[in-house]
């Protein structure tokens, strides 16, 4: 479909909408009343069909707005549906999670933070706020009191809303429950999943997150437009170039700012350097999980020169703080160009060697192929992005679908694999690293002359969506401005937020020894997801801890090696 056909397709549901607006050409804004939201969402997701990105809820004095963001990747168009909830006292809307599993978490989050009730949601337990957070206190509302002024509500360890639906998914604690985590010796973050097991087979999985929730969306409302990039680069230390870029693109979109060409190239180079170091980091960790510690050490050694380059360009190994509205803060000095190209050549050789070693290793083939398969339809239903989607045959990449920075004028390929298993995800990341090296080199050669930033006087009122391809997938930022110097609402969605729930599809029916590598295969980033998980022993017997799990995983590799060689 081209833009014209998409518009026609969407206008088929015109009678349920109150407004259709198109600004700029590839952003469509639909409005409807809350009663019609379910039908319109079903139409958009199943009939058109669009990819669900995330939902945002906005507290606009007299009413609540729930914004459902969709993307049509073929032509890089974003469709936003605004549903108005006029009843401020008991805000409620029909849940879309029954047909759209990818929306389950965000509806729980909107309930926690803004107090919207989602009717017929399959599992409305607390997701993002802490266990002892008082009931009925919604921090994202405009009238929310600061913690110090807040009356002590009744702390609750129970869900604030009991699920109405019989299809409630929780791990049955009467079964043996295997907690994975919360503290891994080598995984940087706390993380925990409760796995219900039947013998060696995983039968159910549950996740409790909140541990890393820092409340950034509220903090962003207190910062000026120019300060926000410093905040969002700290959503995740490994995606600290793509988050600010997505935010800045959202603001530039509705403010009508076009950054100079050189800035676009500098943004591309920094983002690709970030992708290189992030993917190498993942290869190392994946090697560790299956008992290839040599790969871990070598991969992290190869990663160091990339961090050195980033430090030389931006002044910091991580958290670059380089992108700003209207351009970039720091330029890449011309005398640094030969050094970067020389380093890229070195890394390319090493990565080619590493890729060959992985692709030719019979043990890895047996160990990783057919493990943790995420089927294409599951990938679409859970709305996963990035390498996780591309390894399941879903051909999406923001860099190509809606070219930003300088990606539109450079030559590179989108890597996809049809299988959906752990091996495919490894292949996608390894080959993507080589593509990223190619992009950096080409961008450096073509780097145009000129300034890297333009002066920005004022941010007008408006709203915009920006997205960028981070190493783990699409980061999405929605910004609304009322013409003041601070955003009135800023929604951030990191790729792991949609990738992590797909474990439900990829882990079930698998073997315990395969769980660590399956969980690791989406490159989960819990600070991205703004939350972490811990399990408390609620009487369920703990069968294995992390060390045993790691041992199981490694023993399986060792056994395979002996059988093969």
């Amino acid at each position, binding site marked *: 479909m081209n833009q014209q056909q998409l518009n026609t397709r969407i206008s088929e549901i015109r009678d349920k909408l109150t407004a259709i607006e198109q600004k700029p050409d590839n952003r469509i804004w639909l409005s409807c009343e809350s009663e019609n939201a379910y039908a319109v969402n079903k139409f958009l997701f199943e009939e058109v069909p669009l990819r669900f990105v995330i939902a945002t809820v906005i507290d606009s004095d007299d009413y609540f707005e729930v914004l459902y963001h969709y993307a049509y990747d073929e032509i890089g168009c974003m469709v936003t549906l605004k549903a108005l909830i006029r009843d401020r006292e008991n805000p409620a809307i029909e849940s879309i999670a029954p047909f759209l599993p990818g929306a389950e978490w965000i509806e729980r989050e909107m309930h926690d933070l803004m107090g919207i009730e989602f009717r017929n949601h399959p599992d409305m337990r607390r997701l993002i706020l802490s266990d002892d957070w008082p009931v009925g206190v919604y921090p994202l509302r405009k009238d929310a009191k600061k913690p110090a002024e807040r009356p002590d509500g009744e702390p609750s360890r129970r869900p604030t809303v009991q699920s109405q639906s019989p299809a409630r998914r929780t791990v049955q604690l009467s079964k043996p429950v295997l907690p994975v985590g919360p*503290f*891994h010796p080598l995984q*940087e973050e706390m993380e925990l999943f409760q796995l219900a097991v039947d013998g060696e087979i995983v039968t159910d999985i549950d996740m409790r997150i909140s541990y*890393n929730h*820092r*409340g950034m969306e509220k903090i962003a409302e207190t910062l000026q437009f120019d300060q926000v990039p410093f905040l969002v680069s700290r959503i995740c230390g490994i995606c*600290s170039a793509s988050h600010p870029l997505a935010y800045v693109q959202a603001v530039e979109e509705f403010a009508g700012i076009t950054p100079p060409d050189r800035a676009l190239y500098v943004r591309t180079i920094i983002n690709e350097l970030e992708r290189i170091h992030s993917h190498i980091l993942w290869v190392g960790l994946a090697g560790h999980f299956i008992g290839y510690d040599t790969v871990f050490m070598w991969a992290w050694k190869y990663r160091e020169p990339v961090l050195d380059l980033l430090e030389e360009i931006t002044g910091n190994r991580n958290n670059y703080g380089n992108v700003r509205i209207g351009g970039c803060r720091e330029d890449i000095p011309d005398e640094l160009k030969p050094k970067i190209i020389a380093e890229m050549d070195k890394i390319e050789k090493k990565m080619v060697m590493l890729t060959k070693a992985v692709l030719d290793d019979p043990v890895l083939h047996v160990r990783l192929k057919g493990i943790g398969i995420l089927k294409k339809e599951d990938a679409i239903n859970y709305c996963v992005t990035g390498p996780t989607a591309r390894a399941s045959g879903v051909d999406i990449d923001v860099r190509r679908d809606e070219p930003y920075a300088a990606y539109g004028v450079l030559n590179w390929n989108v890597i996809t694999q049809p299988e959906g298993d752990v091996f495919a995800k490894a292949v996608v990341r390894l080959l993507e690293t080589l593509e990223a090296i190619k992009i950096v080199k080409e961008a450096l050669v073509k780097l145009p002359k000129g300034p890297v930033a333009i002066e920005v006087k004022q941010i007008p009122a408006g709203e915009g969506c920006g997205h960028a391809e981070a190493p783990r997938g699409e980061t999405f930022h929605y910004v609304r401005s009322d013409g003041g110097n601070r955003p009135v609402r800023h929604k951030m969605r990191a790729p792991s937020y949609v990738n992590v729930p797909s474990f439900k599809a990829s882990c079930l029916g698998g073997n315990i020894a395969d769980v660590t590598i399956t969980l690791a295969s989406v490159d989960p980033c819990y600070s991205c997801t703004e939350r972490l998980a811990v399990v408390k022993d609620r009487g369920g017997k703990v069968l294995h801890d992390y060390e045993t799990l790691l041992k199981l995983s490694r023993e399986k590799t060792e056994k395979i090696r002996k059988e093969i060689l």
Partner: protein
Amino acid sequence: MGLSTKAVKKSPWVFHVNTGACNNCDIEIVDLLTPRFDVERFGIKLVGSPRHADALLVTGGVTAQAAPRLREVYRQTPKPCVVFAIGACACGKGIFTTGYHMVGPVDKIIREIDPDAIIAYVPGCPPKPEAIISGVVKALAAI
């Protein structure tokens, strides 16, 4: 210097606690173990349980949900132990100071259960691996 203090200072084993960090300090800590910095040559080892640890490397400004877990981890660590608050957030909540879900910083949470805890601060966003090594060396020299 008592025997237990000497044991802490020789080959300190460390346990890594993320209490709501952005992953940045955390990858720099893992970086310390890999070939360029390789702190294992000094006997510094990342261990899988706080019960084996001489020191805690705490990152993040402590979210409401992580605070009870941090206290529990501290209780489980054999004393004497050194708590390292690594990064701007752990030292003073950093950019997240105004967040509604933040109850830290690290020293406040630890001092609630042990006013005499030994706490060392390594500021930076993120601190470079060299800075973390330097912080550990200085703290161990001071006790």
